[in-house]
């Protein structure tokens, strides 16, 4: 059964907002070292909020592309393991257009969660 609102993403966003706007400035005044740690924590909560919101669809897209690329069904982990093996042994390399399109799309989804401002 679904949980009531707030959704996981909404609750994470609310916690991050509170810690950023109220707890961090108070800590900065009294315990600067903890203020820094709190920024790290707030940043991590923001990652989780995006992951809850964007992660499932991103994983599904990655899985679908990998099935197409490798031509077989398996779990996401197994398919990535096979792809990593092919890349280490040189069976595939950066001249493979479909491979590069897959990696670009996968990393675009990953950075959109981990750090959308990165460029």
């Amino acid at each position, binding site marked *: 059964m679904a949980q009531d609102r707030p959704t996981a993403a909404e609750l994470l966003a609310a916690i991050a907002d509170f810690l950023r706007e109220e707890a961090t400035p108070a800590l900065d005044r009294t315990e600067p*070292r903890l203020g820094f*740690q709190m920024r*790290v*924590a707030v*940043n*991590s909560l923001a*990652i989780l909020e995006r992951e809850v919101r964007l992660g499932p669809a991103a994983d599904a897209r990655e899985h679908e592309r990998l099935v197409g690329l490798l031509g077989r069904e398996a779990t996401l*982990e197994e398919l*990535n*393991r096979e*792809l*990593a*093996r092919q*890349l*280490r042994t*040189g069976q595939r*390399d*950066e*001249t493979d257009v479909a*491979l*590069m399109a897959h*990696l*670009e799309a*996968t*990393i675009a989804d*990953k*950075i959109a969660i*981990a*750090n959308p401002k*990165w*460029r």
Partner: protein
Amino acid sequence: MTVHTLTEVENVARVLTEATSRHFGATATIEGLSRQSGGASRQTWSFDALVNGERHDLILRRDPPTLGKTERERAVAIDRATEFRVLRAAFEAGVRAPEPLFELTPQDGLGEAYVMRRIGGIAIARKLLRDAPYETARGRIARQLGEILARIHATDPATLPGLARREAADHIAELRRSLDLLGRPQPVFELALSWLDRRKPAPLDRPVLVHGDYRTGNYLVDETGVTTILDWELAHLGDPVEDLGWLCVKSWRFGAIDRPAGGFGSREELWAAYERAGGGKVDPVRAHWWEVFGTAHWGIICLNQAWKHLSGSIKSMEHASIGRRAVETEVDLLQLLKQGA
């Protein structure tokens, strides 16, 4: 029965009083002892020693005996005794490095430790890149880093302690071993390492002293520019261009992405200063290779930092969160591979 135990600070102060007095041959008084930021396994303490009315600004570098290092750290990092000797050789060769003064003994009981002179300046990239007092310094840093690096690479190998020789192939093997230990498939890092493997530069006839972690965050700057180069624990013998490539990795630009030389200048400015100061001619293809390598290296270090927390060797939210920074280097690697194709 009451057991009196000294706090850690009291114990360090007591040992430093003895060791510093021993070194200067006169009674020393320790003041202002404080632990600086930094890891649990590699501590830096700042203190003043008053000897015969003279004040010495000093730093204690210390690996406590009880704290374990990860297998990878033991494999690539030098111990404090070796670091002391590298620092001595570099300092005497005229490198802007802190002057190492004396080592502590096993009987002192602080673990591997030595004392060096404290140099002024800050290492915080965010301030160096944006704050007003560093305006003049900002215009000099790229050039100064090139000049200092030429000096480091010119250190006479005969004056150095035994250091591992690490060529491109060794680095690649080490990173692959690291990925295998971490155990999760990493297609982008595998792609990058294979790309690097196929293009790796030939080993040099005469390897030089490589700093190994020459980047923004690991040197101090005051209003006049770079004052000293820190963090020598990854020193080894190898290709001088390794340090030039590492300095230009995008992760050390802290947002100033159009200034590859640590966030302060162009690659060409850095290379020209390096060459003018006696460094060898920089081959741009070789420099690009080391920049790609450095990017993959930092990404895998991020994964390893998270692993320190995940494996239970240290408990640290900060370390855990660094794992999620690895993808930044995956973005950069895909861009770099496109440029170099």
